[in-house]
């Protein structure tokens, strides 16, 4: 089963994500450069973190105009699992695949620290192995990570179960402490924290099992063969 890792100029978590997909969870992962298209037989797409186009103008906005995004949009419509992490989340938001915006953190600084997520929706392809309200120790690393939606959209998000992850405490001023959301169909998920930095015990000072469930959820959804 094929997982595509989309690479933009300035992506910098692509290699980390690729390592986790292939060496830790044994997916058949492939890089796809932003100017190319995605093949039809792909089973999941991941937009990794980084600073696409140096975060200029607004994080994710220039990458959202890349040719490959048209294919990502098509796949999203077909129900293929798509995950955007950090800058990948910002790109999904800027390309209209996910609701909301990501604003500058309340501290106005880039923030790199370990925090805890709470699983709010365990029906998505990336959370189906979690118990509801399960805690995930995970690091964040972003400057524009404060999720914001207006009140009406927030009501809709809640009604349609689109809030996937929340921070266990106030981290950066996000509306409702939201750390990750999905589209109405649930197949497109975006999250600010970095699961690829938390799945190996060697570099996770707390517990690597919960974050591993994100990738195990995808495994159970699309199956793994190499």
């Amino acid at each position: 089963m094929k997982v595509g890792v989309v690479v933009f100029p300035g992506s910098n978590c692509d290699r980390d994500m690729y390592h986790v997909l292939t060496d830790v969870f044994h997916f058949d992962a492939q890089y796809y450069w932003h100017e190319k298209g995605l093949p039809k037989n792909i089973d999941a797409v991941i937009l990794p973190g980084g600073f696409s186009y140096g975060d200029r103008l607004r994080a994710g906005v220039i990458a959202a105009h890349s040719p490959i995004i048209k294919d990502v949009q098509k796949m999203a419509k077909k129900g293929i699992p798509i995950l955007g992490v950090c800058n990948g989340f910002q790109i999904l938001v800027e390309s209209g695949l996910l609701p909301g915006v990501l604003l500058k953190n309340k501290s106005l600084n880039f923030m790199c620290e370990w925090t805890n997520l709470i699983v709010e929706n365990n029906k998505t392809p990336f959370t189906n192995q979690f118990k509801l309200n399960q805690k995930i120790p995970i690091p964040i690393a972003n400057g524009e990570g404060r999720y914001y939606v207006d009140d009406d959209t927030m009501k809709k998000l809640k009604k349609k179960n689109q809030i996937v992850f929340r921070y266990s405490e106030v981290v950066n001023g996000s509306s409702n402490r939201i750390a990750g959301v999905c589209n109405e169909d649930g197949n497109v998920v975006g999250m600010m924290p970095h699961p690829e930095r938390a799945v190996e015990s060697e570099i996770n000072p707390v517990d690597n099992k919960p974050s591993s469930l994100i990738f195990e959820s995808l495994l159970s959804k699309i199956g793994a063969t190499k």
Partner: protein
Amino acid sequence: MSLEKQELLDLKSKIGREPTSTELQIIAAEWSEHCSYKSSKKHLKMLPMTGPLVINEKGYDSGVLDVGDGYVVTAHIESHNHPSAVEPYGGAATGVGGVIRDILSAGTRPIAIFDGLRFGNIENDLQARWLFKNAVTGIADYGNCLGIPTIGGEVEFDECYENYALVDVAALGFGKKENLIKNHAKKDDLVVLMGGSTGRDGIGGSQFASDSLESEDRSAVQIPDPFIEKLIIEAVLQARNDGLIHAMKDLGGGGLSCAISETADALEIGIEMDVDKVHTRESDMHPDEIMVSESQERMLIVTSKTKLKKLEEICKKFRIGCSVIGRVKFDNQVHIKKGSKTVANLSADFVANATLLDLPSKVPDYLKNIETEKKFKPISNYSKTLMKLLASPNIASKIWVYGQYDHEVGIRTVVKPGRDASVLRLDNGKFLSAKIDGNPKHCYINPREGAIGCFEEACRNVVCTGAKPIGMLDHLQFGNPNDPEIFWTFLESLKGLTDFAKTFDIPCVGGKVSLYNETPKGPIKPTPVIGVIGLIDKKPSIQQKISKGDCLLIVGDTKDEMGGSEFFEYIHKFVGGKCPVVNFDDSKKNMKSVLDVIKNDLVKSVHDCSKGGLAIAVSELSMTNLIGCKVSLEKVPGEKLDIDRILFSESHSRYLLVCDKTNLSKIEVILKKNKVSFKQIGQFGGEKIQFFNGAKPVIDLNVEKTHKIWLHALPNLVLHGKKSV
């Protein structure tokens, strides 16, 4: 322009004619202190630069260490002091960029950044606060965008840096030995300039870096573009994988002038280049400007005609500029043309090797009575004193700084910043530990012993993680070398470092000298900054949570060495006294024993005892574990001392070990066998940090409250101008 009269005469007699303006510019750039090391080079040779793990090849801008299994680690250190003092955001950011390209030019991927920052007293100096804040943001914005973790460093404030800034950046790279660039060139190979365009920014930067700030021309500001740098990294590494690079050099100080002449000199070739082929930002640039522009994010690559097309395709993919600006000849000349017209034609060897100086030196007058202590008012409340120190800018937690740096990207960071040294995992199952340390307060009082102390402290930090030091980087920062007293402090520091490196078999794998660091009030204190790289074969020592009943041991003697201590300088506002001196025998024994204890998996935590002394080191253990500790000062090994000395002396070679009760006797066996001085001095538990002298309580602080103050003191001061104690 800062070509000396004698240098101008040398130039004229060598070429037998009047030099062209371009030739003058090239020579001035290349013979500046910054590029030529003319004042220091003669002496730097004393440092040991070879060792079983060191790989020496021509033309490398970084040191290369063999870490086994076909892998290498590269290391380099640079500073960007003058630019950062004028424009801290861009200066600090482009400082990161420069050192990263040095790592890249060996053909290795940069995997870690360290930064050492020094400013004036931020408690009352608003300019220092502004410099500090913006330098941190500059480093964060640059390093984070590159996706290279900033995993360590240090921040220090001292009045000697008023209106000035020291921004030191070290970087590590990692790669396969077979992928190292073997700098070579064949006749008719092409010289390619890759990366950002050449503009007027940064013109005269290297001469600017070698002039005192007072007299400088402040146009030499460089604008950082981390996005282009990231693309250059990926493009270069792909070109490396495809075997397209014959030789490579980063464009740093002196711009094209230095890159061209140093490449030609190192490879013993000639290079003919045409300034019209350089992709410039503005159309009306003069050849002289093109040759000395220090526009950032550019690399010089030597490749063959057949490989050019592939290299151009890679550059196109990563949307970066790529111009063939010249070709390799075998006449050893640097021949610069504008179209068909020659604007400079000089021998590469002559350009790249300025006449080295042998500057006079003399013991500084200020040292005569520096070791004499004055009588101090006795401390009435040591709890208050400790709290004051914990909230002081030099000792307070630096989480506000490293929390702005992505220190996780690259998924190698096993031990995170905020500990003694950070640890990275390598692809061959080994681990790399690294730390940079400086201590201008000690170095001012005794340049030799102070420098050795910095070296030993960096070693100690690396040892605390279970690593054996395998290489050292030195960054020697001093004032104007033409002042014999300043030059003496430089020589003393260098001699000290050399002695320690030789005794401990730690080769110097890279370094940098930064002179002319002068503020409007005079020279900075001698500020050598030493980086130490350690290797861990099996498993690093990872701090485990300390729990009730755990024992606290100290290894190493505490001595009456208060000179340059935070206690003297921050509490008593006194500069002087006898600074700590490293005893080489004890240092070696203690290092070995601590590594033995770690190897046998007997400790929960190992912590270096340094700035602020024992009281600070114990508090840090307590605060980061949120558990109290009771310490008996009379048990602390060493000569009999007054309480203030035991608490705050900054004697070297000391380590704090924390272990479970059940391991205590096993640890004692190892330490005894190694004949080191040690004692169990305390036990963890409760909610208070307590120091006793016999039955008499000396210090009593609540851990949680102390932790909060220590944690928030720095942002409170920087952001809100509020002192916490």
